[in-house]
């Protein structure tokens, strides 16, 4: 397929690997921010092909993995109600909340549906005028415009039985939270390509300057990742700390202005708790007052229970790149994709799930 196959060419990958080896003279630690990149790195074994001097840390860029337990508890509470059709991306259904996950709600008779797009839930809303349709709005900047456009379409088409449970999060504040941590070992970032497709990379320029760290906006195919690593190492070896754009076929400095206009028409920046990282200031998107009627958290009278998390799970440390999944005592034994204890084992982009799928034989 155009724009995919050519970026998986093994001879070209070899050439990039040789160049990375030639450039690397010292030990360097790079974090790939996005879970999609983690998945590709583990799947193609890119981390194992790199020189020993280079360590890749897996970042917090999986929206399923960072959605706070209290938000999942709210989703479970809404989905359990009579008369509600609860729509969500599939990965979210098996993430454990304090008591149960959404799939259990479904098994107990709740109407929980897996959708591909927030627009699917608008369609369900039109087809079921006597039901309340709620969409679980998780995601990063990449998914924010789809959520915002669904709200605008609901307003335009006067669909009154649709609400959104907003759980959108923003990536740069999370990168900064990682950098501010004293235990931070990250010396360079591969920034998440599709987040930047939407919002561009101007904001990263401040981060690169403030923390003197190279940031390379990187795509998701093996060649993209190898080129991104190559560009990061070239900067590190020269002592540079700039923002560079490896993924220029999909990303411009300004990003998609139309998408940003739609996002900020509907949403405003709010504080948001992240699973494993705690509350991060100005790191989420919530509905603006004028769209408050579309906010499921207002629409339903919610009882907040006590939030409980599995104490054995170290996914918070995995999300910060401080531990590898295989260092978790429960990995592959008490915690598996069939019986996940943490969100990083549920999502296909979670580091634990990627290690389980591609590395289990070697790590167990």
């Amino acid at each position, binding site marked *: *397929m*155009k*724009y*995919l196959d*050519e*970026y998986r060419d093994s001879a*070209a990958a070899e*050439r*990039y690997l040789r*160049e990375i080896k*030639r*450039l690397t003279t010292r030990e360097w630690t790079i974090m790939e921010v*996005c*879970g*999609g990149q983690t998945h590709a790195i583990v799947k193609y074994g890119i981390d194992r092909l790199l020189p020993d001097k280079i360590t890749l840390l897996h970042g917090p*860029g999986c*929206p*399923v993995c960072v959605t706070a337990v209290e938000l999942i508890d709210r989703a479970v509470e809404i989905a359990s109600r009579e008369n509600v059709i609860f729509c969500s*991306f599939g*990965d979210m259904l098996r993430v454990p909340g304090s008591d149960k996950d959404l799939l259990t709600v479904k098994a107990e008779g709740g109407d929980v549906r897996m959708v*591909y*797009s*927030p*627009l*699917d839930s608008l369609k369900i809303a039109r087809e079921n005028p006597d039901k309340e349709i709620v969409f679980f709005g*998780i*995601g*990063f900047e*990449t*998914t924010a*415009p*789809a959520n915002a*456009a669904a709200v*605008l*379409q609901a307003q*335009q088409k006067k669909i009154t039985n649709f609400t959104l449970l907003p759980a959108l999060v923003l990536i740069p504040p999370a990168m900064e939270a990682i950098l501010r941590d004293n235990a931070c070992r990250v010396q360079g970032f591969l920034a*998440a390509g*599709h*987040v930047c*497709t*939407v919002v561009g990379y101007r904001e990263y320029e401040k981060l690169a300057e403030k923390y003197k760290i190279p940031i390379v906006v990187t795509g*998701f195919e093996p*060649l*993209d990742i190898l*080129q991104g690593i*190559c*560009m990061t190492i*070239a900067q590190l*070896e020269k002592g540079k700390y700039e923002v560079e754009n*490896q993924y*220029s*076929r*999909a*990303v411009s400095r300004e990003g*998609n202005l*139309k*998408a940003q206009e*739609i996002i900020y028409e509907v949403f405003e920046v709010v504080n948001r708790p992240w699973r494993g990282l705690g509350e991060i200031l100005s790191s989420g998107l919530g509905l603006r007052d004028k769209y408050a009627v579309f906010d499921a958290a207002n629409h339903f009278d919610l009882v907040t229970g006590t939030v409980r998390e599995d104490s054995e799970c170290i996914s918070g440390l995995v999300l910060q790149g401080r531990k590898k999944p295989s260092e978790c005592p429960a990995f592959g034994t008490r915690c598996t994709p069939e019986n996940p204890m943490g969100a990083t084992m549920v*999502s296909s*982009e979670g580091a634990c799930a990627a290690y389980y799928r591609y590395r289990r034989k070697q790590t167990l």
Partner: protein
Amino acid sequence: MCLAVPGKILSIAGADELTCTGRVSFGGIVKEISLALVPEAKVGEFVLVHAGFAINTLDENEADKTFKYLRELEETDEPTGEES
């Protein structure tokens, strides 16, 4: 989750920017995709699609840069490692 897949616009329907859609082919599989975020997109162009929305058009000239850099490496015995 942030997976976005490239596809080619076969046709465009609807005049209203917010509800405008396109039939987009992903290597032969055709889906109806919202073009609300890419009002300037044209038939024949490639878009990156995520959660039912085209989030941007793909730039053909820029797409070659990854290979251009490689060709430069091949041409020189002493590659510089500078810029792509």
